């Protein structure tokens, strides 16, 4: 009974255009020069294992709307959980009444936007047999425990989300879309002669979860277990300035944090980015081309339309070292004069949209990884990055390296733990000397002004000639 009724709710969520039109009329009634309404219903589920058996199962529904008004460069944003006609109009009036302006704009008649869904969806997440999902997690658990007797705990988890959105604005835009997200991950804890360590990893995509049926679970579980065990005997990393080889896939998180955030108009328009006023200028080594692409089929950070209803794009940010574009949302476009790039995103209706990254990566180069290793006399190979942060105003970044090795005389040697990479985005970009041809992407959750959203990062292997490695004093 519950599955059927849930399905019908999600599919019936679309609000009649006539109601949206009335709400937009109310929103513009005091002189705002732009209004949009974002309607959302999201179903999500998470399931996790502990002590070899299913431990937790949660299902959640998000349900609400956000009415946004622009009075010039000023944003008014009002949210409600009441999606009735009266509720939406009440929220629109509440937003309008915060201010009055001389401008007089009438909303355009709504026209439904047409676009095609480039992402393949299978069964809706609530339709798929849960026993099958339990088996995926059980499989990860068993592989990890078989891999090493040092394992003390394995926590695999599966997250699924199905989001239905509708956007209408006073310029006549009306669009709706469905988005499915699936993510599977695991954490392994080990203890080796009193030394405790842990490691985790995950995979995800835009789309429903059937892709996990054919996924290389063995590879994931064995790698996570091996890395946790490896850390129990690793020594602490050395400290100092040295060459750093950063691996592909999640290595791209540094570009995302240290440069990507500074290219969002959210920072640029506030003059709070080192990239302000640098379009057309050289900001990186000529071997660096960087792209933010929302169009990759099944990509973790992909979209059909953004949360402002615009078709998403593939945006070249840096081409051969020259800054080509910012990441622009509707308000960012007003403030900076650059055309929107289909990058207005938000965690859910509780947040006004902001310019945000999608799948952001450094494009493939031509160098061979083996040659890059051979170039290093003494340095660090950062194989898997951990967490980090950046100050967009200064571009200062710092990242923990979850898996790192010493490179000595052109060879990758012993693993080390506790390494941290510290630098400034714009300096580091200029020090990327070599870029391999092996581009890969990885999934992440990006937190910023408009909440936490799925975003992919990526790069080929890169060699940074010198970075400050924070390790531990002997």
């Amino acid at each position: 009974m519950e599955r059927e009724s849930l399905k019908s709710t999600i599919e019936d969520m679309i609000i009649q255009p006539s109601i949206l039109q009335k709400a937009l009329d109310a929103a513009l009634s005091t002189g705002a020069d732009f209004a949009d309404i974002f309607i959302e219903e999201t179903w999500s589920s998470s399931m996790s294992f502990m002590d070899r058996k299913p431990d937790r199962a949660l299902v959640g529904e998000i349900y609400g709307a956000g009415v946004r008004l622009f009075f010039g460069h000023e944003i008014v944003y009002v949210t409600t959980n009441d999606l009735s006609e009266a509720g939406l109009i009440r929220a629109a009036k509440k937003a309008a009444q915060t201010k009055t302006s001389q401008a007089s704009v009438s909303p355009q008649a709504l026209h439904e936007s047409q676009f095609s869904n480039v992402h393949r969806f299978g069964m809706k997440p609530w339709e798929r047999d849960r026993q099958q999902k339990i088996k995926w997690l059980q499989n990860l658990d068993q592989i990890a425990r078989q891999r090493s007797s040092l394992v003390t705990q394995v926590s695999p988890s599966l997250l699924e989300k199905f989001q239905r959105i509708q956007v209408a604005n006073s310029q006549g835009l009306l669009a709706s879309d469905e988005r499915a997200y699936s993510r599977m991950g695991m954490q392994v804890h080990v203890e080796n002669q009193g030394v405790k360590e842990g490691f985790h990893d995950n995979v995800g995509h835009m789309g429903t979860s059937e892709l996990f049926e054919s996924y290389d679970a063995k590879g994931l579980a064995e790698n996570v277990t091996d890395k946790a065990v490896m850390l129990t005997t690793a020594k602490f990393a050395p400290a100092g300035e040295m060459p750093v080889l950063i691996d592909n896939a999640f290595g791209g998180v540094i570009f995302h944090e240290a440069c990507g955030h500074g290219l969002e108009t959210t920072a640029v328009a506030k003059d709070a980015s080192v990239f302000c006023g640098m379009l057309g200028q050289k900001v990186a080594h000529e071997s660096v081309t960087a792209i933010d692409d929302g169009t990759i089929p099944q990509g973790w950070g992909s979209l059909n339309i953004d949360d402002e209803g615009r078709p998403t794009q593939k945006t070249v940010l840096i081409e051969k070292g020259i800054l080509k574009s910012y990441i622009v949302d509707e308000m960012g476009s007003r403030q900076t004069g650059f055309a929107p790039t289909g990058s207005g995103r938000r965690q859910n209706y509780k947040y006004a949209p902001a310019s945000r990254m999608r799948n952001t990566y450094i494009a493939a180069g031509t160098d061979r990884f083996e040659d890059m290793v051979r170039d290093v006399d003494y340095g660090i190979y950062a194989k898997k990055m951990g967490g980090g942060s950046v100050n967009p105003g200064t571009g200062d970044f710092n990242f923990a390296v979850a898996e790192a090795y010493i490179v000595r005389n052109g060879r990758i040697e012993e693993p080390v733990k506790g390494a941290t990479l510290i630098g400034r985005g714009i300096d580091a970009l200029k020090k990327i000397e070599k870029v391999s041809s092996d581009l890969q992407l990885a999934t992440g959750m990006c937190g910023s002004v408009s909440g936490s959203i799925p975003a992919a990062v990526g790069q080929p292997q890169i060699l940074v000639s010198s970075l400050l490695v924070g390790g531990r004093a002997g």
Partner: protein
Amino acid sequence: MSDLLKERFDELKTQAQKDGVQIELLVVGGESLSLCYQGGKMDEFESSQTQSAGIRVIDGGAQGYASTENFSPEAFRRTYSAALENARMLVDKKSEAPIPLAKTAKIADLMEDLYRPQDVSMDRKLAVARDLEALTIAADSRVHKVPYSGFSESDGWVRVMNSAGLDLTHRRTSFSGHAYALAKEGEVSKISGESFYERDFEKIDIPELASEAARRATARLAARPAKTEKMMVLWDRRVARTILQMLEDSLSGESLVENTSLLKGRLNQTIASSLFSLMDDPFDRRGAGVRPFDSEGCVSQKTTLIEKGELKSFLTNLEVAQKLEMPHTANASRSPGSSMSVGSSNLVVGLGTSSRDELLKKAPRMLLLTDLTGGLHAGYRAASGDFSLPAEGFLVENGEITGAVDQFVLSGNVLELLKNVVALGDAYDQKASSLLIPDVLVSDLSVAGGA
């Protein structure tokens, strides 16, 4: 807070009885207003109304969860069914000891004083938001701009009902705000700032906050890269909160159940310097974690966690206490959309006797640690307790600050750090937080820099 909720709950309770299960409903709602100025002009005006209901169904030792923001009767029924299905999926757990529900109990202090509706005009609120930016810029000529600032007002409530007859409500109001200044001098720029949390609008002091935000942003403009060495480190009381954040998971009985606690098997043993004592105190009104009852409706209680260096207790909720056969401490923690967990209320470290000046003189050379630039996720490994955190601060020689340092990583292990506490300050930070800790002087930490 309509009693529509009670009607919804009673319907589900009847259904739960038919299904032979227990049910608990946690509802959180509220209204908030956020105002932000940029360049002297209003930038953002956000008003939100939120409500969320979380249902927990208990079937013997199994429990399932579901939540919704849609408060229609159909949505509540659907959410209940999803929670029931989630509970029934955990077939292996059903036969475990039944998970207890909170029983109704008299609450001596409902903390009604935390709800203080105040009739403050919109103009005054706007003025606070405007001044957060304007006064911070005016506070120091090196403040280039204030990219992040804002004022928020919040009125929130929580209600817990369960099939054992419990029905508790708590409501509170608060004001908060922040200003982060971007300071520039030559090629160097730094961002730092200050924030506040107040229950009384009249106590908001923007001039003081603005000058502190500017002071913090400009203080380390002349910083030089640090050298690599082992040294004595004085954790400023604000940044010392990070020590409690690192420790918190391991103090949770849940981490014992999951076999991930660093403190497993250490009960009644010495785990810290004898100077170090720690309480969980939900009654301390200085702390933002003050509350009359926990997330499953159990009456708040005060718990000694560490007494003079000795580990005295772990935090528990009803389920965890039963599993571990440990005392129940009423530390259930969850939001409607999450599963039941264990969390601290206010963690309060006992004060020491030294003033800041006295602490600075305790060694001929030390580092005054003022900022961990990446927070915890930039390098704390919960599995081992090891940390490598990018940091900034000041060098102190013979009791005097001799210069700012940056671009270094502070590293160590949280359990070793606790043993190496050599002195504690005599005051907490005035800014409200759920973590109350004075300045902490720690010997023998690694500072690794590029100089």
